[in-house]
C-alpha cells in the first residue's frame, strides 16, 4: 500500500504515504472493534487508504507537489479519482512494488541502507527486526532508514524500470530479498524463530522479480532455488509446540517434496548463465542437504568445498561458522573446533547465539560436557526469542552436569550426545 501511495504522492512524500497507511490501519481498528471485522479486511483497508489519499490530495494540492509522473492529473477533479483508482489496481500495485524495490536501491545509498529500506517500506519491518537480521544495533538501523528516506525524498522520481543502471540495482534488490528470507527463516527478534510468512513474502517478491523478464536472470533463479530448498525444510524445522529442530534432528519425511523439486529445477535453470554467484553456491549447499536421506549420508566433503568456494565469493563470519560446522562433520569435533576458533572477524559474532552453541555442540561431542554446558549457557544469554531460548535450554540440560538440572527429555536428545555415549 505504501508503494501504491508513493506512486501517487511521489517518493519525496514517502512519510505522507506512510501516515496515510497508518491512518487507514487505525481507522480499521476503530471501526472493526465496534462493527466486527468485515468480510474482506484487505479490500476494506485498501478502500480506506484510497479515500484517505483522495482527502490528502484535495487538501494539499496547492501546497504540495506530488509525483512528477502523475503530471497534473491530480490537480483536477476530472481525473483525480481514476488516477488514484488506477494506482490501487492489483496489477499496478505489483508494478509499484517492483519499482519501489528498485527505488530503494538508489546508488547514493550504501547497500545496507538499501536493504533496510526495502525491509521497512515494502515489508513493514521495524528497526529492531531489521537490526536482528543484520546483527546490528536498533538505533543504527533507525538512523540508516531515516537517512535512506531522505535520499529517496531528494530523488523525487520513483525508479524507472527501463533505466540504464537497472542491472546494478538488480543485484541489490536480490540481496535485500535474500536477507528478508533469512529474517523469516532465522527469525532473530520475533516471538517465533521461524516466521513462515516472512519467508513467503520474500518468495513472493522474488517470484515478482522472475515475472519481469529483464530481472529473471540465472542469478535470480539461483536465489529462488535457494529459497525453495530452505523453505522446503520449514515444516520440519519448527514443531507444533513451537520448538526449533536443527537440521540434524529434523524428520526428513516432513520436508515439502514439492518445494524440493521446484528448488532443484530452479537450480538447474540457474546454471544457464556463465557466472557462479553466492546464490548459486548456497543453493547448491541446500541441494546437497535435501538430497541426503540422513545426516550421516550427507556429502560433507562436498559441502565443505562449497563453503570454501562461498568464502572466496562472499566471505562472512556466518559463512565461516557454517563451514566450521561442516568441517566438524567431515573431520570430527577437534577439527571443527579449530575451524571455529580460526574464524576471521569473530567479534562480529559476539552477539550471535549460534557461535557458542556450535562450539558447545562440538565440545559435547568430544566428551567435554562441562565446557559444553558453559558454552550453551553463554549462548542462552544471547538468545533473541523464546524459541531460541527453549532450544538452548534443552541443549544446556542435555549436558546433564548440574544436579539441579531437570530430567532430559528423550526427544530432545540429539545425535551429538548419543555419539558421545558411544565413545
Amino acid at each position, binding site marked *: 500500500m505504501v508503494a501504491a501511495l508513493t506512486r501517487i504522492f511521489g517518493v519525496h512524500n514517502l512519510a505522507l504515504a506512510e501516515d496515510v497507511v497508518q491512518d487507514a490501519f487505525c481507522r480499521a481498528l476503530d471501526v472493526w472493534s465496534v462493527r466486527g471485522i468485515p468480510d474482506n479486511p484487505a479490500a476494506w483497508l485498501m478502500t480506506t487508504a484510497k479515500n484517505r489519499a483522495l482527502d490528502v490530495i484535495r487538501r494539499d494540492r496547492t501546497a504540495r507537489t506530488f509525483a512528477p509522473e502523475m*503530471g*497534473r*492529473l491530480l*490537480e*483536477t*477533479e*476530472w*481525473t483525480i*479519482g*481514476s*488516477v488514484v*483508482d*488506477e494506482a490501487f489496481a492489483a496489477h499496478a500495485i505489483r508494478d509499484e512494488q517492483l519499482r519501489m524495490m528498485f527505488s530503494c536501491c538508489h546508488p547514493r545509498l550504501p547497500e545496507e541502507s538499501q536493504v533496510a529500506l526495502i525491509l521497512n517500506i515494502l515489508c513493514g519491518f521495524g528497526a529492531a527486526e531489521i537490526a536482528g537480521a543484520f546483527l546490528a544495533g536498533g538505533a543504527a538501523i533507525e538512523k540508516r532508514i531515516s537517512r535512506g528516506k531522505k535520499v529517496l525524498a531528494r530523488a523525487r522520481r520513483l525508479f524507472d524500470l527501463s533505466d540504464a543502471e537497472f542491472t546494478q540495482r538488480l543485484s541489490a534488490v536480490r540481496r535485500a530479498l535474500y536477507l528478508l528470507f533469512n529474517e523469516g527463516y532465522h527469525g532473530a527478534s520475533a516471538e517465533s524463530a521461524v516466521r513462515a510468512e516472512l519467508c513467503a513474502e520474500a518468495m513472493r517478491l522474488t517470484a515478482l522479480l522472475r515475472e519481469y523478464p529483464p530481472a529473471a536472470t540465472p542469478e535470480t533463479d539461483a536465489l529462488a532455488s535457494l529459497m525453495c530448498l530452505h523453505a522446503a525444510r520449514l515444516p520440519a524445522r519448527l514443531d507444533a509446540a513451537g520448538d526449533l529442530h536443527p537440521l540434524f534432528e529434523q524428520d526428513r519425511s516432513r520436508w515439502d517434496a514439492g518445494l524440493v523439486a521446484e528448488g532443484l529445477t530452479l537450480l538447474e535453470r540457474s546454471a544457464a548463465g556463465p557466472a557462479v554467484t553466492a546464490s548459486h553456491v548456497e543453493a547448491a549447499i541446500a541441494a546437497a542437504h535435501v538430497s541426503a536421506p540422513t545426516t550421516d549420508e550427507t556429502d560433507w566433503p562436498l559441502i565443505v568445498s562449497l563453503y570454501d568456494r562461498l568464502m572466496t565469493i562472499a566471505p562472512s563470519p556466518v559463512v565461516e561458522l557454517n563451514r566450521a560446522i561442516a568441517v566438524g562433520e567431515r573431520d570430527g569435533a577437534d577439527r571443527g573446533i579449530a575451524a571455529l576458533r580460526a574464524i576471521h572477524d569473530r567479534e562480529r559474532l559476539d552477539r550471535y547465539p549460534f557461535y557458542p552453541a556450535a562450539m558447545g555442540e562440538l565440545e559435547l561431542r568430544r566428551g567435554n560436557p562441562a565446557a559444553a554446558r558453559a558454552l550453551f549457557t553463554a549462548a542462552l544469554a544471547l538468545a533473541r526469542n523464546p524459541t531460541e531460548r527453549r532450544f538452548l535450554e534443552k541443549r544446556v540440560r542435555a549436558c546433564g552436569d548440574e544436579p539441579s538440572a531437570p530430567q532430559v527429555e528423550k526427544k530432545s536428545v540429539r545425535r551429538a550426545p548419543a555419539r558421545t555415549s558411544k565413545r
Partner: protein
Amino acid sequence: MSEFVFLFRATEAGRREALGTPERAQRSLQAWLAWIRDLEARGHLRHRGQPLEPTGKVVRGKNKVVTDGPYLEAKDLLLGFIVIEARDLAQAVELSAGCPIVEGGGSVEIRPVGTLAV
C-alpha cells in the same frame, strides 16, 4: 499557440447515463482520464479546469435577485471546463473530437480566449 476554453455541456439525462451506476461512472471516468492524459502528453493541456456540479444559484439583475438554477430540466447544463492550447481553432476542434462527453451525446463548446479591448 493560442488558448481555447472547452466548455462541456450535456443534458441531465446524458449525465445520468454516464455516471448513473458505479460501473458506468468508472468507465466514463476512465475515458476522461485517457483523453485528458493524451492532451497533456501532447502538450495541449493548459489549465486543468474542473468539473462543475449541475446546479447552484444564479444572481441576476440590478437588484441582484438570487434564484436557484440553472434548472436540471435545462436543455444543456454546463458541466465543466478545461483550457487547452492549440495552433488555431481548427486544431482545437480536432482535439475536442475525442472528448467522451461527445460520445455520450453531449457537446463541447470551443471558445478562443479573447482579449478585452479597452
